[in-house]
């Protein structure tokens, strides 16, 4: 029984031949069977609905009503002109950029700090994992309680310090800041851990050599740490960026549905409103496409590797 498919396919043989070659090999056939269930689930539950959303976005229909008249790009035009959508889009961009930037900087600082051996390091590592374990919704409810104008401790402190003149939850700007703080609190540990892992793969003698050459700490950081950490940074940034881009739970619970993100807008249009359902599908497609573009950007432009060699 052959266990290796060593025959290279000929030019012009096409995909059909490739498939046949693949399936002739037993090991490979097994492999395909093994990935088949996962593949089916993913295609069926994720990609099929997005195709349906896409089709619906070009139609005018009500939820539960099949078909519907063809509307071309009408829904998209309405969408981009709709000021709540524009606000939601801007909110999402601002939230993503600021949150991820802060999480990165603070996370890196924490990772660098923990990387040095010191007492109680294990304890610290354990403590910073605590925020990560919370469900986002619970965390958001917690922070909202702290921001609330009657019983919230943070609102009280911040008002007493004279930093704001109206309660946190009444002004969209401060609500956004509050949401960012909550998100940074919750996910910086995760970022720090990812970066820490990357740091730990950098061999110590590189630093030794640099020190011998007289490089300062700062120089070491910029010339050695950052470049070697590059791949880990990109992975961490990509995941965090896309996570923030999809923000829903946090905005929903923290702002009591007042602050909109791309996802909350889409959800509202698709589920709460009857008539905005077609527009909601367009919003869903836009949300998906933008997330896709961000991923492409990271992978192609920034050269992030998604290696899969055995």
């Amino acid at each position: 029984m052959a266990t290796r498919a060593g025959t290279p396919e000929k030019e012009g043989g096409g995909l059909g031949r490739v498939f046949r070659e693949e399936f002739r090999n037993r090991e490979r056939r097994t492999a395909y069977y093994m990935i088949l269930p996962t593949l089916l689930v993913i295609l069926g539950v994720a990609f099929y609905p997005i195709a349906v959303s896409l089709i619906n976005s070009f139609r005018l229909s009500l939820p539960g009503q099949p078909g519907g008249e063809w509307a071309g790009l009408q829904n998209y035009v309405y969408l981009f002109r709709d000021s709540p959508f524009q606000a939601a889009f801007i909110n999402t961009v601002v939230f993503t950029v600021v949150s991820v930037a802060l999480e990165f900087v603070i996370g890196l600082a924490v990772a660098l700090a923990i990387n040095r051996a010191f007492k109680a390091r294990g304890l610290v590592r354990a403590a910073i994992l605590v925020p990560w374990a919370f469900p986002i919704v619970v965390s958001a409810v917690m922070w909202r309680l702290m921001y609330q104008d009657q019983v919230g401790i943070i609102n009280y402190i911040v008002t007493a310090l004279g930093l704001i003149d109206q309660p946190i939850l009444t002004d969209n700007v401060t609500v956004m800041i509050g949401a960012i703080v909550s998100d940074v609190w919750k996910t910086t540990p995760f970022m720090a851990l990812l970066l820490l892992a990357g740091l730990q793969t950098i061999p110590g003698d590189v630093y030794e050599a640099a020190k011998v050459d007289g490089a300062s700490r700062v120089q070491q950081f910029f010339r050695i740490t950052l470049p070697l950490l590059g791949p880990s940074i990109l992975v961490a940034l990509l995941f965090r960026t896309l996570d923030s881009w999809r923000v829903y739970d946090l905005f929903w619970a923290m702002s009591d549905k007042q602050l909109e993100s791309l996802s909350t807008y889409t959800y509202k249009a698709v589920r709460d409103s009857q008539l905005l359902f077609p527009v909601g599908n367009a919003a869903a497609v836009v949300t998906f496409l933008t997330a896709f573009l961000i991923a492409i950007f990271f992978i192609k432009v920034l050269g992030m590797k998604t290696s899969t060699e055995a």
Partner: protein
Amino acid sequence: MSSVVAERAGGRSGSSKRRGRLSRRDFLRLSGAGLAGAALLGGAGCGGGGEQTSGVTNLVFSFGPDDSGSLTQVVDRFNEEYQGEIQAEYRQMPSDTSSYFNQLRTEFQSGASPVDVIGGDVTWPAQLAANGWILDLSDLFTEDMRSDFVDATVQSCTYQDKVWGVPWFTDVGLLWYRQDLLEESGFSEGPQTWDELKEMAEKTSRDSGTEFGFIFQGAQYEGAVVDGLEYIWTSGGNVLTDSGEVLADQPDPITGLTTQRSMVEDGVSPIAVVNYKEPETHTAFLNGSAVFCRNWPYMYGLLKDPAQSQITPDQVEITTLPYNEGGESHSGLGGWNMYVNAASEDKLDAIWEFIRFFTMNDEQQRFRATSGGFLPPLKSLYEDQEILDSQPVVSIAGDALERALTRPISPFYSDVSLAMQRQFAESLKGAVTPEEAAQNLQQEISSRIELGQRLLVEDRSG
């Protein structure tokens, strides 16, 4: 290692036909296991509907949480009285009215709802009827019967000149204020107009050192739609008429929105009201932090309870809402009605008994009023001594109900409401001017209605 592996791999085990081949059974077993397991376990949780079994008609009645416990008791009483004939089951739905409605709508859209009798909000009949999901009750709920009910409540069940529900209990917006503080500042009577209210609020809060002059619901949600509409109505304006005319962009509504905004601008109300729903409102008022407060009658129950309130009922006076010149005092109507699932027509006789027991039975209504603080929809009960003794707020509520108005009756109310929610909140926050809000409202509601008429294939209420 090798021998262990050999031992485990065996020679020919039953599940493998040929060396190196993945047998179909193995494959199916693997991939089917998880999904099948999930599907099997997923069977739990679906609510059952009522069916006919051995002569007893089973009914399912839906409503939000039964905080006071009085609902469950009335259901028990009904079951006791109709034992052997009809048995009713109370199915709890989400506490938030919009969520409750969404769930109902979803169930109807996916083909069936297990609910026979719906305890629904006053804003729902048009939407439910236009889609053909509830029954026309005009023949059962005769004109004679209707005359026993408060007019506004019957109006809230009406759409296209037909009556689609029976009022169950009602609610109305009221003005509450600290009579003791007002007297100290030299005011012997409550305010008639909004301007008077502002004046009194400013002076009284200054004199007594009370934190807030006037608080009300201003958050972006359905409840604040009532507040916003109250300002508009008391200025003589309206937003959407029964015939579908959009009147938002007119001087009177703009005056109303301006009045609302001026509460915050002039410092009479704290900016925090843009986050206020009912809980925040009653918390602040019962803490003694406000002179005036716009809220529903439920607050009386909390006011009486020393564990929940720092102030006592004799410090508080309740009255109808103020108005602007050219307008009259109009409170927003709240409350809940009973609607019948169109698919349950075969059980209509039993259902009608159930509805009558809850809505037209003086004893049950009295019970709900005294133990739960639920305002009865029957006119006669507003003179009922027992109710008046236990819930003094009922008397002023009765007055307010005479001139209460319902929110716009439209088959697209969900979307109309979303538009109002947003514009009222934006105007209150000062993010847009009242004029802009009125314009936006006009444009948004008109376009929604137009879109709705195109999409709603047919209005099945006709």
